[in-house]
């Protein structure tokens, strides 16, 4: 039997990821920290990153939100550890493309996070999926990011 739209959105792996999110904590010595909000729903997400020798060595997120935003936070933090900031920026852009269009040439590069592509059938929920990724881009791409780096 074909999966319903709901089953595609809420794959078991997503439900599990959201109920036991990885990297849902705070870092003792973050190099970057940013808090982003989804003003239409009130969700708040704080992301902290630690960078060493040009690579992200630790990532943690905090805050509460829906299944999609929590699962996305977990999958995103797990995916970006070990990447350079430039690689993270590329992943953020690939992820946006995937959840908006439902496909992306870079789907494989996103790894487990690609499981969230079912979101493209629910336009009202795309912001939930992209919140954590936007936080990463903001943390690394802010004009004053260097100022945060101390």
């Amino acid at each position, binding site marked *: 039997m074909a999966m319903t739209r*709901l089953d595609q959105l*809420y794959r078991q792996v997503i*439900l599990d990821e959201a109920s036991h999110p990885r990297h849902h904590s705070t870092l003792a010595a973050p190099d970057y920290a940013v808090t982003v909000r989804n003003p239409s*729903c*009130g969700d708040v997400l704080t992301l902290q990153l630690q960078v060493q020798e040009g690579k992200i060595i630790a990532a943690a997120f905090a805050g*509460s939100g*829906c299944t*999609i935003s929590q699962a996305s936070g977990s999958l995103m933090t797990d995916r970006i550890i070990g990447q350079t900031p430039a690689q993270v920026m590329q992943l953020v852009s690939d992820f946006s493309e995937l959840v908006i269009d439902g496909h992306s040439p870079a789907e494989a590069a996103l790894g487990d996070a690609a499981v969230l592509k079912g979101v493209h059938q629910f336009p009202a929920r795309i912001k939930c999926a992209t919140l954590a990724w936007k936080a990463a881009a903001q943390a690394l791409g802010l004009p004053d990011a260097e100022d945060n780096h101390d």
Partner: protein
Amino acid sequence: MREKFPFFAAHPDLVYLDSAATSQKPQDVLTALQDYYVNANANVHRGLYELAYATTAHYEAVRAQVASFIHAAKPSEIIYTRSTTDGLNLVASSFGPQVVKPGDEILISGAEHHSNFLPWQQLSHRLQAKLVVAPVTATGDTDVEAVAQLITPRTKLLALAQVTNVGGGEVALAPLAQAIHDVGGYLIVDGAQAVAHLSVDVQALDADFYAFSGHKMYGPTGIGVLYGREALLEQMPPIQFGGEMIDEVLDQSATWAEGPLKFEAGTPNIAGVYGLGAAITWLMTQDRAAIAQQERSQVLALRQALAAIPGVVLYGSDASIGIVSFNLTGVHPHDLATFLDEQHIAVRAGHHCAQPLMARLGVPATVRASFGAYNTIADGARLAAAVQEARGFFLGND
């Protein structure tokens, strides 16, 4: 009733439970909007030709109709606005600085919608006044006792919703009106969630200002009403300047029109006024007591059905006016709303423009079902059954 609303012909299977956000419109209102553009399209308070005169006469006749609808003493106490928000901002910007001095207090409830929160918060900043936010009841409604206790001789403005937009509780305003007037302050009422459901009497409420929107009472979007006591409107300065609001304009000075036109700069939403008039006519020709009774029964039935589902937390009370807000423990309101949407059930999930209230309730968001004249008991039953199913989907059946 449903057949009077063309929207439901386009969405036959939809369970629409979001009337507190905006109601659907009966055919009569849609006809009035079309009638304006097809038969009566002329600007008001300008043209000398007969058509413009007739349109102006209708525009003013609706003002009289609004006055009668909310029992204002005179049509000149009715100002057309864009919305409830627009009306409350007008009071804050024009009347606020006339009566609030540094060190004075503006009192609101923690259950207010952002539109009856932020104008006062920002006015307090501007005037070095203090915004006092009264605590709410455990279920998210305005606590009348708490509000009464916070009225002091320094309280210049008291701004409250007549019906709150999350809990849906009706606020007993009369004793508070007495208390605020006793200390020389003024009562501003946000009527957005009240007018569709209650028979409003601004004089009996003893309100100094009363703001509401057309679109939550079966009328069009973009048209609202601000009632103000005549003596207060007379002393208030306009806050927007342009056409229609003048008496005489010279190079270096100007004088203003009298009455409500002083606050209606620019070409107004004339079609919206036609639609608003039709909405009032439509409402007044319904059996409003029967609709109110039907809405009470629907609120009660839905609350009972939801209360029987393990993990459901209800806000508001059995006396809530047309609103049932709730959460399902362990399921985020957005996930629940998406699940419901897949079953063609439209509810609101979010902070309902009441973030200070969400903070007081200790939740990021709630789900809100709200009723209109076209809802049936079956709509609430379908919602409750779907919530039960959602529980199984997200949490597994235990």
